[in-house]
């Protein structure tokens, strides 16, 4: 086999591998991807939007917003800790990506749970700014 044939073969298989893994790579999301997305949406809704605040996110997380539950009712006051469902007692894995790396890596799950839990706590959908502040807070908690 000539050298250029070997190179061709290696290149060929690398391209094939890249094509095969491209869809997987496209789906691997990070908390930062979500922050960027929320920031874009927040800016589109409010041109005066300046950026997210962990402090505002923390207040949002602990507030009952006039209802019976806050985020912390199930996820506890410390998003690095395991939570417990307020009614069923079922253990809930930590919400912060710092304690639980699978959090905020799958947009289908992120959308599903924001939709449900915002309805539970606020009786409405959350705004992109609220989601961004919350995630900024979750990422700021280290212990």
């Amino acid at each position: 086999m000539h050298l250029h044939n070997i190179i061709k073969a290696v290149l060929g298989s690398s391209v094939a591998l890249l094509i095969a893994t491209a869809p997987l790579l496209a789906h691997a999301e990070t908390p930062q991807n979500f922050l960027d997305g929320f920031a874009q949406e927040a800016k589109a809704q409010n041109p005066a939007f300046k950026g997210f605040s962990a402090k505002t996110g923390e207040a949002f997380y602990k507030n009952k917003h006039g209802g019976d539950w806050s985020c912390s009712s199930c996820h506890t006051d410390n998003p690095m800790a395991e939570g417990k469902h307020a009614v069923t007692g079922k253990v809930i894995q930590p919400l912060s990506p710092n304690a639980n790396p699978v959090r905020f890596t799958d947009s289908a799950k992120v959308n599903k749970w924001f939709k449900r839990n915002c309805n539970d706590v606020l009786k409405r959908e959350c705004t992109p700014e609220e989601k961004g502040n919350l995630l900024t807070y979750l990422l700021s908690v280290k212990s």
Partner: protein
Amino acid sequence: MKISTQLFVATLFVGLSATAAAGDHNYGPYPSYYTEECGSCHVPYPPQRMTQAGWETQINGLKHHYGTDASVDVPASQTILSYLVNNAGWKDKLAPTDPTARMTKTAWFVKEHGASAPKGKSFSECTQCHTKAAVGDYSEQTLKVPASWRSR
């Protein structure tokens, strides 16, 4: 000798698992999509323990599910409903008795557990007593009733 004992135990175990059937209080393993969607907030409930009508009411009412929004998107909810219906019970005692089809209000449940949970507790906390409920095992061997639940 040791290996043959292990083999024997393993064979026995496989044999027992293979004969798992109605009456042994073992309803798992559940499909992963069922555990994922219906086992996040509570343990996934055994489809065999309620009738088709009950499961239809449950799945159609997920948007307002005992004070929470438990909505599931349409392809997933159809898959889940098919699974529940295909494995649903048929006896009268498994039929829903209230408008929201609470499993805990069916005749068999009330007979087995009483009409109300101890104060401050909820019947939805299956794992309080059925320690392996998360995987569908409700057998006597894995049942552990706390003293506070017994004194009633």
